[in-house]
């Protein structure tokens, strides 16, 4: 093979779009913007660093930051809060999202279009704008308080904003489409003849929903729950805007440690704990999803 033949062959192979080449740009981008920075950040979590003129001048291995984080009550409370928040959001999204997906399944073409538009439209708007709208709705002089005062239910405005409830409401609204879309994807492939067979065998609508539709939707539920949990657990904007200044979750904690306290080692350890705990919950969700779909897979063998 001549020296010029190899680059030529390589170029032809790249341009042919065969093999792994189509994925290479994405892999390179992900490696450069996600994997390498995250590895650098994690390395800081296991070292004591000295910075001078913005540059790290010394870095020595240390488990001090990890040990401190694991024994610090502030970390425990913050992670507990983040976990509660993410699980509550996921559960509420499942409860609210499934009926919408069911409506999509049983509705006519118009109903399906409306549901799709209503689900996708909020995603086209910035999450910050959607979160800010909740400040207008839930604020001291917002729609909810004004209505309750006008109806005579309360005499003074309720404090809704800057509470955990405001954060949960905002999170559910922001993440609900992420739950509905995988469910819709599953529902749109659902074979309605199974429902008819169920009805012919004497099952009620509720019985069909419980014994036919729900088990066949477990895959979508699992995917949606995993996505919603991950986004809720690591979210930053909603707690910042709706939780008030004394609401701290793991993501805001990392931001403060890195940006305001400039303590990168602490931030790196918190990021590591966040990632590991998130992966643990995702593993449980995956296990539950597999458990719920084992009979489907068995029947496909």
């Amino acid at each position: 093979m001549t020296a010029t033949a190899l680059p030529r062959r390589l170029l032809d192979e790249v341009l042919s779009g065969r093999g792994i080449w189509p994925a290479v740009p994405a892999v390179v981008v992900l490696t450069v913007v996600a994997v390498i920075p995250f590895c650098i950040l994690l390395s800081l979590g296991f070292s004591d660093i000295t910075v001078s003129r913005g540059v790290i001048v010394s870095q020595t291995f240390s488990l001090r930051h990890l040990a401190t984080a694991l024994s610090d009550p502030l970390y425990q409370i913050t992670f507990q809060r983040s976990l509660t928040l993410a699980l509550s959001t996921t559960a509420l999204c499942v409860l609210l999202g499934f009926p919408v997906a069911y409506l999509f399944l049983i509705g006519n073409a118009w109903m399906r279009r409306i549901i799709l538009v209503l689900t996708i439209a909020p995603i086209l708007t910035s999450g910050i704008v959607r979160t800010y709208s909740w400040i207008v709705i839930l604020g001291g002089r917002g729609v909810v308080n004004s209505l309750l005062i006008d109806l005579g239910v309360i005499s003074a405005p309720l404090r809704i904003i800057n509470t955990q409830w405001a954060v949960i409401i905002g999170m559910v609204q922001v993440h609900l489409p992420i739950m509905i879309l995988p469910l819709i994807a599953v529902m749109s492939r659902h074979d309605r003849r199974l429902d008819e067979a169920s009805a012919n065998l004497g099952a009620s609508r509720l019985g069909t929903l419980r014994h036919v539709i729900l088990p066949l939707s477990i895959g979508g539920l699992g995917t949606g729950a995993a996505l919603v949990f991950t986004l809720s657990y690591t979210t930053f904007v909603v707690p910042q805007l709706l939780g008030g200044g004394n609401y701290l979750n793991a993501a805001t904690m990392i931001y403060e440690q890195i940006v305001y306290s400039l303590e990168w080692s602490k931030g790196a350890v918190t990021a590591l704990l966040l990632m590991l705990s998130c992966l643990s919950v995702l593993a449980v969700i995956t296990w539950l999803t597999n458990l719920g779909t084992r009979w489907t897979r068995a029947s496909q063998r």
Partner: protein
Amino acid sequence: MKTVSRRDFLAATATAGAVIASPSVLRAQARELVMIGYGSAQDEPLKRAGDILGKRHPGVSLRIIGGLSAEAIAQIKAARGASPYDFAVMGSPAIINAVDEGVLEKVDISKVPNAGKLDERFPPYAYDWGVPVSFAGIGIAYNKQMVANPPKTWADLWKPDYAGKIGLCRPQSNLGLACISIGATAFGKPDADTDFGLAKWKELKPLVGRNPNLLQQMLERGEIGLCPLWHDNTGIAVSSGLPLGYAKVTSPGPLMLPTMIVKFARTAHSDLVHEFADILLEKDSQEFASKPPYYFGTVIKGVMPPAGAAAYLPSTPEEIASMTSVDWPKVAPNRGKIVEAFDRLFAA
């Protein structure tokens, strides 16, 4: 019809990319100064000075990026000292933090001729790293519909009349940091006794705003009745017709924080930064900045703020004489620890 091959497609894409990127490349060839500003209406005096600089040096332009100084310092640290910014407006505590991180380069006062006219009270707050161009007051902003008689001293905040109505800014901002210190000094403790200050604030069970702008919004929405706030934030809110008032509180104070122009290390536009600072210290610029709604405090001798500024800035001889600030070198280096202590007390 000729089929478009992958090779043609790639060539066309590369050409289109070059055409799209060319304005940015050309813009980069012109001299653009990038600075950290306020990210709000307070940037107007800076924009005006940038326009003057652009007229003096054709091709020079100013881009103002809004945000807290602390965020800029973190970005520069993340970029391993390669600052994406040339300079910034920074208060004393942020300067101390930036110097600790080694991201600043000293401003050469000899290249800022108008600095010779500075009121001698202000340069010490630059710690030889910058040049003061204005000052902001820290007082108590209050919602007139919720608070009839605002506090006169900082200790008044702890009176039962204001219970359940008070807001506070997180200590990552200079305002929040000053508040924690005030919690100590108002009760005879030193500025650096921030543990005492935090404990005193905890007694008030305040609603906390993440930054001064969000705190101001909480006040506007009636979620809180009163809070420590910058005078310029309050002035801008009042000018838009909101029912807010501002109390120039004493003991300690009236409190102020000088704002300095500081230069980031390795800027390629050092001379232009000095000239920009000099423009801001010109009489016209000082008068422009002291106009409503900003009412920035003037730092040049002989330039007096307009009459309307008396509601926000020290105006009587007694107020001017007792004007003070926080002992920043004792407080600012502990910002990280104070933020963590704050979270342990308020967020845990």
